[in-house]
């Protein structure tokens, strides 16, 4: 008998996206450019994070008509964002047949205490995390992919690096503990013991780990792959740059050939200007999207 929406089927799509680049797009035209450049999926949203930052106000799920337009324009998977804890937005996205939902801190949170129960859905979810405990809590709620939060819309890779190192370092530390020490570690991480045990044994998350939040150059993409990311999300970094088409292609190339500096160098030539970027100290405490969610 055919079974849909199993954990294996959900993480299966995440597995398919590995080694690839998922690009933020705001309309069908950008989606076509992304697909043509070799994106393995697109994230449909109304404004890229850099514009959400600039405009302020409440950022919500995208207009369904816009999502449909993008689904019709490309054959690669289409993802869309729901607000943290906004069950109804996620239901709407599932009814639209999007391939993956990003329960995202880039949008304004709808629930300050609870994330969505992702087991209730047939389609997979990706969630952001800043450290291992947060990643494992999201997996405990049913996430089929974890991404670093980074600091979206800044074009500054520093926070993504911090989060990726927190997550992978946390995994390595768990591996050094004895079985009797794991319950206490689970308590400290605020994460389900069963998943903590699984990670300690396998040495990796039970779902794919991607990088998001701050990639602006091919070298940024290669850096994150070297730090353990299994694929990259790029938001503002592409369509806020001078030549999105070439930059998109170059970031795809650098994600595949991340261990080959000559290829990354070749991909980085003649790209025009990257997005300007924001230094973290200029954000202030209220400007940090990564602090949304727990």
């Amino acid at each position, binding site marked *: 008998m055919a079974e849909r929406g199993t954990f294996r*089927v959900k993480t299966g*799509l995440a*597995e*398919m996206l590995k080694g*690839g680049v998922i690009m933020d797009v705001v309309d069908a035209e950008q989606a076509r450019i992304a697909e043509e450049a070799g994106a393995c999926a697109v994230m449909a949203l109304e404004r890229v994070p850099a514009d959400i930052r600039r405009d302020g106000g409440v950022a919500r799920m995208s207009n369904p008509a816009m999502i449909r337009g993008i689904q019709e324009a490309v054959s690669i998977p289409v993802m869309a964002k729901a607000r943290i804890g906004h069950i109804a937005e996620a239901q709407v996205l599932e009814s639209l047949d999007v391939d993956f939902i990003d329960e995202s801190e880039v949008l304004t949170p709808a629930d300050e205490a609870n994330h969505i129960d992702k087991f209730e859905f047939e389609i997979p979810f990706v969630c952001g995390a800043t450290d291992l405990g947060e990643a494992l809590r999201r997996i405990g709620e049913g996430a089929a992919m974890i991404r670093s939060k980074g600091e979206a819309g800044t074009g500054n890779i520093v926070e993504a690096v911090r989060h990726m190192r927190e997550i992978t370092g946390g995994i390595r530390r768990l591996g050094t503990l004895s079985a009797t020490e794991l319950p206490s570690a689970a308590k400290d991480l605020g994460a389900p013991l069963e998943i903590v045990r699984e990670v300690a044994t396998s040495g990796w998350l039970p779902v794919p780990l991607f990088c998001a939040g701050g990639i602006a150059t091919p070298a940024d993409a290669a850096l994150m792959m070297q730090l353990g990311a299994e694929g990259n999300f790029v938001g503002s970094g592409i369509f806020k740059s001078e030549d999105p088409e070439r930059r998109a292609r170059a970031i795809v190339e650098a994600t*595949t050939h991340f261990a080959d500096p000559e290829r990354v160098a070749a991909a980085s030539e003649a790209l025009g200007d990257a997005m300007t970027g924001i230094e973290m100290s200029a954000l202030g405490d209220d400007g940090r999207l990564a602090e949304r969610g727990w």
Partner: protein
Amino acid sequence: MLAQQGDFASHLEHLASVGAVGTEVREPADLNDLDGLILPGGESTTISKGLERDDLAERVIEFGREGRPILGTCAGMILLARDHLGLLDISVKRNAFGRQRASFEEELEIPAVAPGNSFPCIFIRAPWVEQSGPEVEVLGELDGHPIAVRQGSILALSFHPELSDDDRVHGAFASECREARSSGDR
């Protein structure tokens, strides 16, 4: 193991568990001295562009025409078809079962691919074979659509044996590669 993009790491784990040595192929020189090649699951559009960018498409076609075994899963099946590498005389329908919500797993009897018990087949936005030429052997069907086909030393599956815990497909592929090496002149 073609490593442009996709779930090549899962294939490598299965190869290791059946005692085969897998290496990642990202450029033409990586193909030298290989006894067989796997085209993984992933996004066929992305992988196909990667093959062109890295001058691999022609080399993979040569590799297949020399009679060296190739296994393609999901996106790999799409790449082997007429519209891409043309190593299989088939046309495929992409995302034939629908978008991700329609993805599923099902135990299927495909004796020619996995002898004995049924095989846990995982279909992710999977293709099926729409039309095939006379030299193509259909090994398995689902709802009347071919989902496992072979032409000579090339095997293509709509589903993902690499995502299951069952090693039979990789075991058979590794044996085929060993036989091809000992019978060939390489």
